[in-house]
């Protein structure tokens, strides 16, 4: 275990930063960890802050919740530390929350020779069977994941009328197959949640019923990343945050049993200009560049296999 960790530290903590329009997504499947349970989880625990450890200790009656919390904090700490060129240890990061509960990271090292902490935006989401952490440079990002087979305790259309916009609920009511209806609901839900999380102002400032996602199956586009996936365009009716910010959305299946949505801010190209350096393709980019990894923190990373893109928004129309 020790030798494996040392090797990991050397190579995997030197991850290049996400470029403009790029989102890095780190996926942790708890099923990947079961075999090495105790030893690895002990090591993960050492990465956590005292308050995080206390929070976990207080759930001692619920081992599943304990594991979720442990893995969530481990994922976000190890993910952010990857982009610090080996200068910052996962355990040394501190986190604060804005007035609406959106987390922010405080780097322990403000400057080391030419290195400055990167301006990373990140967002975490998790279900029992999958945790995901999305990272961008400077662009606000939101991500939400749900299990496809999620069980509801209440009537789905009653929930839909409550939480979706009237147009979305009407659209949903047209699906006669209950399974299909539930899948479509979950897709809409992840899109809406990802948007609210990206905005970072809480649900009261962005009531879910006040914006509508529409799928346009008549003109699918080819996504240049995610292995040439064919996707359906989606559009968002009027942004709710009353700003000029533009947002782009990607709906995907990170695995056969999950739906996830990623929402990211589209920044003006001037944000990234460093002198005359402008990254190739930036001014023209239409498609979000998303890279997904399947990780067992401190042990291994590999490209996420089997992810399927379902829908993508055209940045110009939202």
């Amino acid at each position, binding site marked *: 275990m020790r030798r494996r960790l040392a090797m990991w530290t050397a190579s995997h903590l030197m991850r290049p930063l996400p470029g403009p329009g790029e989102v890095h997504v780190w996926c942790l499947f708890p099923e990947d960890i079961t075999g090495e349970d105790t030893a690895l989880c002990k090591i993960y625990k050492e990465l956590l802050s005292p308050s995080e450890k206390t929070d976990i200790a207080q759930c001692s009656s*619920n081992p599943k919740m304990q594991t979720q919390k442990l893995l969530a904090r481990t994922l976000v700490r190890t993910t952010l530390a990857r982009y610090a060129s080996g200068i910052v240890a996962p355990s040394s990061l501190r986190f604060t929350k804005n007035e609406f509960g959106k987390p922010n990271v405080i780097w322990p090292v403000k400057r080391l020779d030419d290195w400055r902490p990167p301006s990373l935006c990140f967002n975490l989401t998790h279900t029992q069977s999958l945790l995901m952490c999305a990272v961008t440079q400077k662009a606000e990002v939101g991500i939400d994941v749900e299990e496809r087979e999620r069980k509801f305790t209440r009537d789905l259309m*009653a929930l839909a009328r*409550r939480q979706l916009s009237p147009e979305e609920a009407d659209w949903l009511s047209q699906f006669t197959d209950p399974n299909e209806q539930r899948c479509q609901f979950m897709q809409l839900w992840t899109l809406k949640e990802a948007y609210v999380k990206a905005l970072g102002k809480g649900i*009261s400032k962005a*009531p879910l019923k006040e914006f509508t996602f529409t799928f346009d199956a008549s003109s699918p586009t080819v996504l240049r990343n995610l292995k040439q996936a064919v996707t359906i365009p989606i559009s968002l009716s009027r942004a709710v945050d009353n700003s000029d910010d533009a947002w782009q959305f990607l709906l995907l299946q990170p695995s056969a049993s999950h739906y996830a949505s990623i929402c990211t801010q589209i920044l003006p190209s001037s944000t990234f200009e460093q002198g005359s350096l402008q990254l190739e393709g930036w001014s023209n980019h239409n498609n979000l560049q998303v890279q997904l990894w399947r990780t067992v923190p401190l042990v291994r990373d590999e490209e996420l296999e089997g992810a399927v893109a379902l829908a993508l928004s055209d940045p110009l129309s939202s």
Partner: protein
Amino acid sequence: MRHAVRALHSCVLRRLQVQVQLDLPLKASVTPVTRWCRRMFSDEAHATHLDRGEVVARVLDVVKTHPKADPTKVTESASFQDVGLDSLDTVELVMSIEEEFAVAIPDAEADKISSCPEAIEYIASHPSAK
């Protein structure tokens, strides 16, 4: 007269079954019958707020019966997240609370309910809650 009394008697019984909290003024011999009927069926007769202890007990009960809630974490001060619920579960839970207390919570208010104390506070301060 006997017929009227019997009719009133059955009204009283029905009201008693539905409104367990209702404290009936059993002074029929003193209060004119018509005025008593109007009082019984008027809103003022049962618009007293529910007893807080009862609100707490019933709210916590609804939370505990949610399939994803950890009953050992359900306390008067717990947030729904503490109990193991995510945002979608919370929406369903609020709908269940509405059903339990026969109230309709407006969206703007419902969006603010994400914990046991917030749910208890809302119900306890709404006279239409049953």
